[in-house]
């Protein structure tokens, strides 16, 4: 499997620098779990950060007092040890970190009907900036309720969807902003399961936006 639509450099840099809030990070990290090429790009960015780290301007050296303080803490500490690999389970559909947020893989999920054969699960995060949902779109049908303003990230986990000419399949990440008018539609043959992260709508502004959208034809 080769991921066709990788995370952009701008978004990946935000993730690499620790400057991306939890909701967006969840989509990027889950995409990275499915996309080795994007992980190599992340590694190159962290390498770049390391090179900058070497050249960082240093105002003062650490003193002997600083070292004594550090040394005193070492005796009480334990090594974290090697990460013990877990007993191998069957290969899942939903990788970490998303699976832990959902509490299980696809077979255990409790979907809520959205209408027109679509389903969703709201995912709680501590991030007030975003709204995070898992969507299941029936094969051949458009994504319902698809009005959003601001950034939107969509990560495909199963099936695929078309957006215009582009096909997005497992592992692909679509980055859209409010300026993009699009009607993503699940491809035929298999229901599409995707993670959708959007900016959390402010009730009134989104109502206003909905009112003026037809007028402005946006």
């Amino acid at each position, binding site marked *: 499997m080769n991921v066709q639509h990788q995370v952009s450099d701008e978004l990946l840099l935000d993730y690499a620098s*620790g400057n991306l809030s939890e909701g967006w990070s969840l989509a990027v990290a889950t995409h990275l779990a499915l996309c080795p090429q994007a992980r190599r790009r992340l590694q190159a960015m962290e390498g770049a950060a390391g090179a900058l780290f070497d050249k960082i301007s240093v105002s003062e050296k650490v003193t002997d007092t600083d070292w004594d303080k550090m040394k005193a803490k070492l005796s009480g500490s334990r090594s974290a040890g090697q990460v013990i690999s877990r007993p191998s389970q069957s290969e899942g559909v939903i990788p970490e970190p*998303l699976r832990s947020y959902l509490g299980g893989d696809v077979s255990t999920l409790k979907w809520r009907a959205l209408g027109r054969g679509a389903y969703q699960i709201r995912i709680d995060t501590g991030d007030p900036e975003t709204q995070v949902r898992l969507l299941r779109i029936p094969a051949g049908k458009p994504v319902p309720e698809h009005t959003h303003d601001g950034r939107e990230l969509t990560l495909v986990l199963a099936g695929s969807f078309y957006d215009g000419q582009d096909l997005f399949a497992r592992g692909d990440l679509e980055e859209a902003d409010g300026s993009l008018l699009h009607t993503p539609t699940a491809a035929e043959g298999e229901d599409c399961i995707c993670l959708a992260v959007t900016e959390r709508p402010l009730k009134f502004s989104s109502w206003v936006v909905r009112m003026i959208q037809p007028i402005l034809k946006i």
Partner: protein
Amino acid sequence: MKRTDLTTPEHELSPADLSKLLTRIGQQRDVDAFETLFRHYGPRVRSFMAMKTRDTQLAEELMQETMMAVWNKAVQFDPARGNVSAWIFTIARNQRIDAFRRKRPMFDENDPAFVKDDVLPADLELEERQDAELLRKAMETLPPEQLDVIKRAFFDEASHSTIAQDMGIPLGTVKSRIRLAFEKLRSTLEAVR
């Protein structure tokens, strides 16, 4: 003996030296090796923390916590990957995120649903050893305005719109500088593969 050379504070430490030191900390719990690493990275970590926090006391505490985590996690460092500075950066970054009570979900390499890289580990190790040196050189060839944007992102933890505002340039320019910089770095890395 090499050992005494490496633990002399005045010694100019190469990436390979740093890698040996960190490996010794992980495998032998070598306090002398850790002192050398602490004296080398401590001031850098402190500067890094001070850029975001603007608080000397907090920066000092976060430096101590980062170096404690380096001691504790040293055994997880893979010497084949070679790049100690990048590894310490990720630890410092994570400490800074924790300090501000934020969350940054991460993938798990031991997860059965994790898609592994199909490149042979031996090839990858060689590449990664080269990468640390190559990246350092490639960074030096970047135009200053591109380097500036990347620095601000990593060190000040500034959003793209904040960077645009601070530098007095359009948001689109910030994004194109990021793309150009990393395209250049990647092409430098790929040219030798």
